[in-house]
């Protein structure tokens, strides 16, 4: 707690020049995670992210927007160390997870432990070639959970959390591929929920879905933020405006502007942000 307070003070000091940030602080947001001077290089040398500083507030939705190729996915995937799967990627700077105050990029931090606390939903639904039940139970199974009762409860809870329970409760043993695209995506959300993550990452979760399935997922996210912190990448400006509390605008690997979503969408302080939002560019 002391550490947290300490950090808040540092944060206030750092940003005290900007009156808007004082408004944010006045609402007593709790910091859940933040990237500090985060730089990312792909194996081929692409400098995909340059000195990114973005905070994630607890139980809030933070949206990343920006033109294609600006580094949104790269940033999002850094939060659960997805980049470690590919040789040659290099990053420096920090991503601090609170309340532990741990830099999750530290070489001494086990990426598997990080992924257990920060889960991810991908752009294209990617259920496993297993039953609906086993898909949702997967995260608990890899943690060594065998207790059937506990698994049953968790699977039901997660499916309810992803508003999929009513549609699948009678066919939990069906292959997950028999679900529709929107259902598959909610299954992937249930899968990610089953392990009680603290942060959920969404990379354009609705871009492969029809409008109705999209609304379902958006409502779901607003429901989920009562329990956890969300970071979402979206290409859909209305979506960002509708569901997020904070928005970061990125361009060519740089974070141009970060603020409350209302402010970003009504009176952004940077001309570039305004141009992008109003569709003059991008």
């Amino acid at each position, binding site marked *: 707690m002391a550490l947290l307070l300490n950090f808040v003070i540092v944060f206030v000091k750092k940003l005290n020049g900007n009156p808007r940030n004082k408004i944010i602080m006045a609402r007593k947001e709790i910091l859940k995670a933040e990237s500090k001077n985060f730089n990312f290089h792909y194996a081929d040398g692409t400098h995909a992210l340059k000195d990114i500083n973005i905070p994630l507030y607890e139980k809030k939705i933070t949206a990343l927007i920006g033109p294609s190729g600006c580094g949104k996915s790269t940033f999002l995937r850094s939060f659960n160390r*997805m980049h470690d799967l590919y040789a040659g990627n290099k990053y420096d700077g920090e991503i601090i997870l609170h309340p532990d105050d741990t830099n999750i990029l530290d070489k001494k931090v086990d990426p598997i432990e990080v992924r257990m606390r920060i889960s991810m939903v*991908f752009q294209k639904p990617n259920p496993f*070639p297993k039953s609906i039940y086993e898909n949702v139970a997967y995260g608990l199974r*890899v943690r060594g959970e065998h207790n059937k009762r506990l698994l049953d409860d968790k699977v039901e809870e997660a499916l309810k959390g992803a508003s999929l329970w009513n549609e699948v409760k009678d066919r939990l043993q069906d292959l997950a*591929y028999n679900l529709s695209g929107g259902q598959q995506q909610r299954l992937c959300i249930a899968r990610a929920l089953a*392990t009680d993550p603290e942060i959920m990452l969404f990379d354009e979760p609705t871009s492969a879905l029809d409008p109705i399935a999209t609304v379902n997922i958006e409502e779901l996210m607003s429901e989920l933020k009562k329990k956890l912190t969300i970071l979402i990448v979206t290409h859909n400006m209305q979506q960002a405006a509708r569901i997020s509390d904070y928005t970061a605008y990125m361009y060519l690997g740089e974070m141009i502007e970060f603020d409350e979503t209302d402010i970003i969408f009504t009176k952004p302080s940077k001309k570039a942000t305004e141009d992008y939002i109003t569709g003059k560019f991008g």
Partner: protein
Amino acid sequence: MAKKNPKISRALAKNIRRNFVERLIEIALMLSGLIAVLITFGIVFILVTESLPFFEAVSLKEFLTSTVWTPNFEKKNYGILPLVSGTLTITGIALIVAVPLGTITAVYLSEFASHKIRETIKPVLELLVGVPTVVFGYFALLLVTPILQKIYPDLPTFNMLGPGIVMGVMIVPYIASVAEDAMRAVPMSMREGAYAMGATRFQTAVSVVMPAATSGIVAAYILAVSRGIGETMIVAIAAGQQPNFTFNPVESAATITAYIVSVALGDLEHGGIGYQSIFAAGIVLFIMTLSLNILGQWTRKKFTERY
């Protein structure tokens, strides 16, 4: 109102020359496809017509149920079972060796090995495929069986265990390569999904990648069985060419292929029933591999990957 018989402009008219060339290409392609089909039918036709005289002399019942195969003896007996048992036993031993080794190799190459290691190991495996089977045969007879005899002194010089094991080693690269291709075809997004759930590399490989690649892996196993059933030289050299109705790996035996090759090389005079028997044996071999093919098609349909 649409005009009747609208005049087609020159630019949109059918290009006669292009159509003609397309047609020629199509016919050429069809002909080459047809050749393969014709050859297959030709083989079946010869197998059937050549074995008809045999089945006039030997009843189908004797052929399928008798447990003695003695075309060289005074009292000739034509029961295919000893050859089938030899074939199945040796193939079985080979699979016991090749399926685990081949699968583990495939998992390692596809999921664990770095690019550099993979590019070193794969050519070596391919080298193994290139070794003539006659070399494997002598390898079984002169190296593996003597070693086995040290452990189990009663083992005869000609037995099914040695060639079975060697055949297994020979089959490993087939399984490894087909199964590895199947696993590598599993999209990265599937693996990322598993890793994102906190799975380890091994958990991802076993619980997500392998199930996703089931049809390809099963295809690899089926290919391995066909390869085993059809293998001739290793068995002919090291298993003893003694038709023997047994599934005991430490006895000597002959397989269908080993019998066919021994007759074809001139143990029996052409034209007699004994000679015709190789066509009957050939039909059995053909039916075995055909059913494997059908099984392969069926699993392919049943487990089509839907990523």
